[in-house]
């Protein structure tokens, strides 16, 4: 096998690396998709939960305000009953002042036990419609009671009425007090929350999930009961807040809901976003990421295949070039050998000349066969063995490592020198070639178990090759058995091909 074949690199390696790169990219893509999905879900949940908390606080604030004003009114009415100096006009004035900056409170009104109005914060109290009258004047509780969502006769807006009875000493009835909450204020507030096309925001009763107010407004759903919906169940089990995903019973839309119980009052806020709306942008980003990854892999795959084709073509061209060079040398050798076949003994000198020529051209051909993958060097042990084989000699090579390569600039002249030594050694003799590298110098020892005679022309060629091409030294140490050394500096030439 040629040295080229032995040093050939694995062409599959770039494709294996590409496979590993693809797996890595898909793992990164998977991590990206999962982490962005998780982040989207967390952000949506936290956003909805915060919005529910803010809305709940808003209603809580209005109800607390109403409750505090009612407490103050009760104290004031008791003082009037016990002969105090306060008069109804003073209570009215105070109610106006206490509710002035609260748009969500339509009005607070105090009624005597017979139902006549005694004091009110507003002329548009939105209380004295038929529905609210029935509620307020039949309520005997001192704790706050709440109406269903009502339509205000005066404004047409949705209202919620909070009311209670007032008692003096000895459980003497002192009348009723009622406050109305303007639910249109919350409808406007809800409308500013971006919950998407199929999102919704609402306040519901905590006990029955009766719908108090909702955005977008669907009038026919107001006051509908929804017992058993997941947020209400969670609240009935003690939860104050939470995030739950479920499908709406009326519209069948899957939403992620955040709920927040209003502490001390029988209401909770609910903010819901459609699952599709929440994950739309994530889905789009994921699809883009997948497409970009696939495009990246596709283009890098195409690039790799094209690169491999080009490299393959280049390799084939180089091989063809090498093959044709070798073929040309082989033709020269064949021509010389054909000429040699024609010589008979009278032309011995000419024949010898041709044989010498033949062996020298053959050395060049053998050096080509032992060339390394980058075409810069020769596996020198292989060249020594091939030369010995062609010249019919037995050789022992002492050269480490076995794959030691020598630049062509050194290997060709040294190969020609070795060829002359082999050719002029006795037939089928034992030859020892020892090569050692001492720092920047290569030393070759050649020993043969017999007499080696170099003609003056051959010795001249050997000495010229060593002295002029290798800038080295040639020394004959013994004639029989023949022993010589060649040494030359290795820094004379450098590798011109860097792979």
């Amino acid at each position: 096998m040629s040295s080229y074949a032995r040093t050939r690199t694995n062409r599959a390696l770039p494709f294996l690396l590409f496979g590993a790169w693809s797996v890595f990219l898909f793992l990164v893509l998977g991590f990206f998709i999962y982490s962005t999905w998780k982040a989207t879900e967390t952000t949506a949940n936290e956003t909805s939960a915060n919005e529910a908390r803010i809305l709940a606080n808003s209603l809580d604030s209005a109800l607390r305000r109403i409750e505090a004003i009612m407490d103050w009114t009760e104290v004031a009415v008791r003082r009037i009953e016990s002969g105090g100096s306060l008069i109804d006009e003073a209570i009215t004035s105070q109610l106006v002042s206490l509710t002035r900056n609260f748009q969500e409170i339509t009005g607070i009104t105090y009624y005597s036990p017979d139902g006549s109005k005694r004091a009110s914060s507003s002329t548009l109290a939105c209380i004295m419609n038929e529905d609210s009258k029935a509620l307020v004047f039949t309520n005997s509780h001192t704790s706050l009671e709440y109406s269903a969502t009502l339509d205000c006769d005066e404004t047409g807006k949705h209202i919620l009425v909070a009311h209670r009875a007032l008692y003096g000493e000895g459980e003497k009835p002192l009348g009723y007090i009622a406050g109305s909450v303007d639910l249109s204020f919350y409808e406007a507030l809800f409308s500013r929350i971006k919950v998407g096309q199929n999102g919704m925001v609402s306040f519901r009763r905590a006990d029955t999930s009766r719908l108090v107010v909702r955005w977008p407004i669907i009038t026919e759903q107001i006051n509908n009961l929804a017992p058993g919906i997941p947020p209400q169940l969670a609240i009935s089990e003690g939860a104050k807040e939470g995030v739950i995903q479920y499908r709406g019973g009326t519209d069948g839309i899957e939403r992620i809901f955040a709920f927040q119980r209003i502490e001390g009052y029988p209401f909770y806020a609910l903010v819901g976003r459609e699952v599709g709306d929440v994950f739309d942008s994530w889905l789009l980003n994921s699809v883009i990421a997948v497409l970009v990854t696939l495009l990246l892999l596709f283009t890098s795959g195409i690039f790799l295949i094209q690169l491999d084709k080009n490299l393959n073509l280049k390799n084939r061209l180089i091989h063809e070039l090498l093959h044709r060079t070798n073929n040309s040398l082989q033709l020269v050798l064949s021509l010389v050998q054909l000429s040699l076949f024609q010589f008979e003994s009278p032309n011995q000198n000419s024949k010898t000349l041709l044989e010498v020529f033949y062996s020298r051209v053959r050395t060049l051909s053998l050096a080509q066969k032992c060339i390394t993958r980058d075409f810069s060097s020769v596996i020198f042990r292989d060249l020594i063995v091939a030369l010995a084989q062609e010249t019919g000699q037995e050789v022992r090579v002492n050269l480490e490592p076995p794959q030691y390569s020598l630049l062509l600039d050194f290997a060709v002249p040294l190969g020609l020198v070795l060829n002359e030594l082999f050719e002029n050694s006795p037939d089928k003799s034992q030859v020892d070639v020892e090569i050692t590298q001492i720092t920047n110098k290569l030393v070759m020892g050649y020993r043969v178990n017999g007499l080696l005679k170099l003609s003056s022309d051959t010795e001249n060629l050997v000495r010229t090759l060593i002295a002029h091409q290798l800038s080295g030294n040639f020394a004959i140490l013994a004639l029989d058995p023949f022993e010589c050394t060649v040494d030359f500096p290795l820094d004379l030439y450098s590798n011109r091909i860097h792979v």
Partner: protein
Amino acid sequence: MKSKKVLLVEDEAITILFLTKVLERLGHSIIAVTARGEEALDLVKTHEPDLVIMDIGLAGDVDGIEAAHQIRRISNVHILFASGYNNAETLSLTAKIPFTLFRSKPLGFENLRDAFDTLSIIE
């Protein structure tokens, strides 16, 4: 060594001349020569050679490896591949065909004698 009948499948005239001379000196005879892989199969059928010396890059559409595969379907004749294409791929392809030997060009006298010796041992 027994004289062998050799079929030479080679497209290089000089190489044909050279191998003819060398084989004559080794005591073997060339019974037919062709430069085309397509013709090699018919020549094997007709002449029943003891050995086929096969180049790999040939004239025509059928290369030496394909020609050897076709020959192997009808005969177990020894095939000596002789080519300058001594890369790993070529060696691997030729090694898959039984009763074959690969020698890289240039083929010299010693080289050919050694190949014939090896084939005799296989025989």
